[in-house]
């Protein structure tokens, strides 16, 4: 099965997938730093405040530590998926699977 089914672009496809995987891991790390970094300071000290601080009815630390990152993540995902990720030709299925 190995040689007969070998496509010329299998290696290139693998390398592109690996590159995209690295992008995703870095993206995760950036949002991790933002959400955990900000919330670990602002969220854990919020209990000591006499009055809850809010933005549009949402606790301030949730607004800047979660809602804004969520919106940025949406924008980033749209850009990454529609502009950065590359299309690959799909592998053919073995005949007995069709």
């Amino acid at each position, binding site marked *: *099965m*190995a*040689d007969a*089914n*070998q*496509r010329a672009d*299998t*290696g*290139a496809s*693998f390398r592109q*997938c690996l590159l*995209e*995987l690295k992008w*995703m*891991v870095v*993206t*995760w790390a950036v*949002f*991790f730093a933002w*959400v*955990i970094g900000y*919330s*670990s300071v602002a*969220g*854990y000290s*919020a*209990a*000591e*405040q006499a*009055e*809850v601080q*809010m933005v*549009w*009815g*949402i*606790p301030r*630390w*949730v607004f800047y*530590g*979660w809602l804004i*990152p*969520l919106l940025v*993540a*949406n924008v*980033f*995902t*749209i850009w*990454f*998926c*529609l502009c950065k*990720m590359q*299309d*690959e030709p*799909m*592998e053919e*299925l*073995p005949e*007995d*699977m*069709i």
Partner: protein
Amino acid sequence: MMLAASAEEGSNAALVSFCIYTLIVFALAWLAGRKREGKSFMNEYFLGSRNLGMWAFALTYAATSASGGSFMGFPAKIYTYGWVMALWIGGYIVVPLVAMGLISKRLNQVARKSGSITVPEMMRKRLGSPTVGQVATVFLVFFQFFFLLAQFKAGAKIMTTLLGDVSVFVAAKGTIESVLQPVPWIGGSEADGAYYLCLLVFAVSVVACTAWGGFRAVVWTDVMQGMVMLFGVVILLGLALTQVGGLENATREVAKMVPPENGVLRMEVIEKTKLPQGTWFKLESDQQVKYLRVKKDTEVSPTKEGGGNEVDVICMPKPTDAEAKAIESQLAKQTVAAIPFVYQKESGYKYGEGKQGVYVSAPGPSSTEIQGFLPVMMAMCFFAFWPFAGSGQPSYMARQMAFKDTVTLRRSIVFVMIYFSLIYFPLIIIFTCSRVLLPGWEIDSDRIMPEMAMYLTSNAGAPWLAGLLLAAPFAAVMSSVDSFLLLFSSSITRDVYQQKYPDASEAKLKKVSFAVTIIMGVLAVVAVLKPPQFLQDLIVFGSGGLAASFLMPVVLMLYWPRLTPAASVAGMVSGGFTIGAIYLAGYFINGRFGEINLFGLHPFIWAVAVSALVSVIAVRFSKPTDPKLVENYFGQLKG
């Protein structure tokens, strides 16, 4: 009797709309079954001929992901811990990109190239080792089963709430309880006829739907269920915000709340009296009012010694004005006669007792942990858990094998990102409001979602809408259960039966698939006859176990040419056993099912780290994979 919303008229209306929804699900399953004719049974039944477009792939992924945990366990946690749940679920902001993007494209390519239908089969073929496939099947079935149990419990609970006051249902419940009275284990005074009946109806419908329709039925119903979930959440959000007086008002009220206490009421009665779960008592002393709520159905009787009865309750020690108003309106509708009592506090929250502001800040209140519900280290762990555990779920991998091309994948990730944003953020708002509208549901917080749906729609004068809203969590549960059942039948049929009988006919394979689906459904019903208390714990254990066993072996299998069969097996075994051992230790230390967090880290982190380390070490000491296989899946690595 607990809420006005539970009036029979409302229940009947909700039941009708819910039945219509269920009939549509059955119709889709039937149509899917017909579409299978003339195609390869295995490829069509288990992967829908790998031809999913954007809507189907995105919504089936989203619906499978949004399980009973999202609509039952997650709301219960928001209710119990407040706004800190935004941080708990923080990792979801990158779930679509990471969980779908990390392996989808590569996984789909490798599955196509190898002609694989299941994850164990793909691992077996990529590494050229039957042992890898067998070990993968064992871990998949074991951990997925725990996940399945939680969904069965959730499905039965939703139906229980929906049917609560329908007269036929009440009669059937009484009959079942009296029939089961002498039966050991499930009978006696704690027999819950309502739960048993709902569990049976849920199990029969979901098993029949899955067995008949296969993957395509699951996907079609997922598409519908995904839309139902979205509309359900949007409607709930509107109703909740309107009835609570705006989000700012809700957050301000929640900020004033303090956690409840656990205690007992001692009371003497002159005749047998039933105290249903949720019955309120009011305690007034020194210008201070406390409200007490019965935790579970209890019967109190006259006692000869005059020692009285003990009834377990929670106590709202410092109710806010909004809480008092909501409770008083429920008290006014109660039919239980006034009974004199003495209240005794037994325990309070270990973090947050008597403290305002704990529901709008981190780490959130906790009845068991002195450092609170979500210490910083755990917040970090969960930020890793959601996206990476998502990548390691075989049920998602099955979907990732089925999209038709990479354009579909790219657009689906965007779709799911927006979809999740529209589901999870509103859920946090809705169930923050529920603390204000429905106080005291710490007695059975897993029921807050259906109770909230009934309450909001009844107050809005549209009880029939409750059927649609309850269809949302029910859809989430059903879409997960059918996916899991299909995963079991595909793994056992393809990786066990067909391995042993490679020449088995399609008709025979069909029968085996149906039989496995039914057997797994029956086993799940038996296992949850005595339901475990904490739904979310089961879900985290099941999904954590699957991710611990599969994440590193699958990622390395796809991206690391040097991975060997022995290293793959070692990675699965070490990951699965690590998480199992930590939960087992938790059981012995805490006396209940739940994890322990060594050095503040969630078991998932330990298990994935161990799995990765063991895999890498094992590669150095094991026989390399056949170079032809490596070249087949990775191409010419140099140049």
